[in-house]
């Protein structure tokens, strides 16, 4: 009986989540189309670029026809929607390739970087936050606070540039561009070479997240350490580290996890800048291209994908709560 009701609750939860996701994606698509219909950038002209004098109006019409740009925006949206229902995201104007393929190949490059950055920022942020919170007011706390405030107010690309200067220029231990050494066939690129090209961008990306998580964790831990039950535990002679371990850790995990999963969107946004700085050919680069050339299918595809990505992140956080704190239940209005 209990299992059954749990199952039903889970199904209702999943159905609600899916419905919300569907609505979100729909809203995102409509919004992107509306925004881009106001964009002054004419995709045909952006495509032709400097060849403007060689391309006759007849040829311009052919180009517009090739991409269906000669139809009104409403009709293009309906066409696109029809294709989407058949599982087709359309063809990218910039890359002359199905949008799904562009996203797949670009995201592959970004994914490893995002994953490393995400793990690094989560683990380091939590660890630093706990240390600072536990040792509130002492020198490690001040140091960590200084570090976190500095980084929290530093733009991603600036941090990326600093890292480049330090590690690629001064110490010469990191490459300055690309995802692999030039001139080497992909089958000859070793795992270490890939990792080597990946590490610095990933580190740059993670640094921003660290500050955020560390500061929130610190504050939460300080609150906990000032609570009555901790006072009681202290009175019983419990050491600081045992209190942190048994009373603090679970409680600080909640905000940390919320932040960690919510930071997926920031991570995604940050990757656009970091990829520019490191000339790393990921999804961020493709986004810039798509926007500057009014490549609606690709842009909507990427926006879709990132919405899905962030939404999944938040859902995972929701799912993680009851595991960490059994008082929280799926489907509770309080979540």
């Amino acid at each position, binding site marked *: 009986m209990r299992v059954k009701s749990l199952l039903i609750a889970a199904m209702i939860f999943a159905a609600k989540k899916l419905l919300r996701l569907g609505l979100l994606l729909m809203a995102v698509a409509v919004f992107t189309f509306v925004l881009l219909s106001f964009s002054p950038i004419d995709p045909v002209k952006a495509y032709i670029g400097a*060849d403007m004098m*060689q391309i006759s109006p007849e040829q311009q019409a052919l180009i517009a026809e090739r991409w269906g740009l000669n139809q009104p925006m409403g009709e293009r949206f309906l066409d696109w929607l029809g294709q989407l229902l058949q599982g087709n995201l359309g063809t990218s104007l*910039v890359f002359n390739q199905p949008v799904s393929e562009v996203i797949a190949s670009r995201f592959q490059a970004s994914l490893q970087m995002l994953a490393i950055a995400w793990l690094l920022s989560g683990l380091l942020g939590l660890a630093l936050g706990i240390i600072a919170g536990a040792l509130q007011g002492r020198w490690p706390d001040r140091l960590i606070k200084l570090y976190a405030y500095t980084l929290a107010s530093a733009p991603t690309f600036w941090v990326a540039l600093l890292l480049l200067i330090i590690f690629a220029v001064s110490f010469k231990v990191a490459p300055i561009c690309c995802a692999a050494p030039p001139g080497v066939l992909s089958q000859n690129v070793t795992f270490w070479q890939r990792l080597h090209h990946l590490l610095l961008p990933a580190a740059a990306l993670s640094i921003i997240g660290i500050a955020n998580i560390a500061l929130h964790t610190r504050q939460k831990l300080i609150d906990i350490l000032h609570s009555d039950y901790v006072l009681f535990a202290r009175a019983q002679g419990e050491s600081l580290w045992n209190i942190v371990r048994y009373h603090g850790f679970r409680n600080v995990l909640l905000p940390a996890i919320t932040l960690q999963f919510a930071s997926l969107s920031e991570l995604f946004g940050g990757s656009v800048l970091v990829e520019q*700085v490191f000339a790393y050919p990921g999804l961020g680069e493709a986004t810039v291209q798509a926007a500057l050339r009014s490549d609606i299918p690709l842009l909507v595809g990427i926006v879709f994908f990132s919405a899905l990505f962030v939404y999944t992140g938040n859902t995972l956080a929701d799912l993680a709560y009851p595991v960490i704190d059994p008082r929280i239940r799926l489907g509770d209005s309080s979540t």
Partner: protein
Amino acid sequence: MQIIKRERLIGVLSLLVAGWAIASCSPTSTNSTTSNNTAESPSAQSGSAEQVVLAIGGESEEGYDPTLGWGRYGAPLFQSTLLRRDENLNIVNDLATDYSISEDGKTWTVTIREDAVFSDGKPLTAADVAYTFNKAAESGGLTDVTQLENATAVDAKTVALTLKQPQSTFVNRLITLGIVPEHAHGEDYARNPIGSGPYKMVQWDEGQQLIVEANPDYYGDAPAIERLVFLFLEEDGAFAAAKSGQVQVAAVSQSLAVQQIEGMALRDVVSVDNRGLMFPYLPANSKKTADGDPIGNDVTADLAIRQAVNYAVDRQAMVDGILEGYGSPAYGPVSSLEWEETKANIEDAQPEKAKEILAEGGWIDSDSDGIVEKNGMKAEFTILYKADDSIRQALALSTAEMLKPIGIQANVEGKSWDNIEPLMHSNVVVFGWGSHDQTEMYNLYHSQAAQGDYYNAGYYADSAIDSTLDLAMGAPSEAEAVTYWKAAQWNGDKGVTAKGDAAWAWLVNLDHTYFVDECLDVGQLQVEPHGHGWPITANIAEWTWTCE
């Protein structure tokens, strides 16, 4: 190209740092590229007859399909063309062994060589040529073959191209359109090109590099460089990579060309990549474009103003000051090409003469404010330029400076193309063009070309010029058309250049500057069209490595 712009600040900063980074990498670490030592920076490449690394930009994001426009600059690499232009821009045979044009100029008959094979081993036949032209005519890419009625293979090695109208400039399609295999031209062709060119694709890492190797089946002389790696870095990155010895050819801006790189020589290639001021030709409010944008400007509609600007500016000073000497004065749209009318050139930097022209035209400074007037209208106009282009900005500013002494007030404003477009028929705009295809000249000056777009943006209109341009376009061959192209510029009595209607004030041609390894002989280079970078590859199959 000009429309794509990125986060400028980030771009500039990152390249600056990238520059430092590569520049300070010691060029001594020339160990093999298969090194998997993670502790050291990527092994620097040194050139050899086996491999040359180039950083000249030119990535074709949509792939390497000639029917979509690949190969319109420089060499199509993977494919070969019917004809090509040699180092002096003369038209010579490539795949074609001969071609003739019918009396009425509508049918071009081309015979092709029999020994050409595609890199998949299949022979290249007239059917492939016909397929390529028909396909290009109907596909919405960056090659304009819309004048083609149809192409048919007469026999295995003869193809007949029938045009809707005679078009002397159609020869440029024979020069730039690489022939694709009918049997292997599918959806994925652009990413896996098969052709009969000197090189074949090995690997393309999008956004990063393109690796190609000599095609053993190529019918021409085997290329001397076995393997080419094209790195897609931006200009400052390319410069830094050259400085660290990692690339053997780097396209750099004029401002970087003044630097020295050990082991590399600067190749300064003359180009027709021009910059000039386009004048609105009609008086203000004469009409509106289809989009409702205003056409015309009362000040620039006056011939005296346009001529005075042409005579007042000091073009050589602009070349020296703005382009670091890497450029040449431009007096017309087709400098250094065979169809340039050099008699149209003027003696510029003459403010006195400019003042005379203004005075004769009725422009006098009656209220002593330093600006001349005519019928109560001040000689004042706005020069628009693309905001993120520093050369165009400098040209606009120095023009304004040079016009002040003769009493013309030019206000300078930078905007994006999207914002310039609605204003470009009623304001002076700094444009840059330059092509081996004379169609461009036709579109710059023919009254019928003015349709509220970039073509003849100033709505210049003169029936005599129109008919000269029509004669040039309708001439049966390029050689016969040249006379008319020249006459349209200046025939001793009339023309579009400064001595005539002065529809534009052409200012400068940019030289294209490349750092080339001292061991690499790139031969004699063509006068390059607009587009810095890829055009240097036009003769890439003839490049040789001269060191051991």
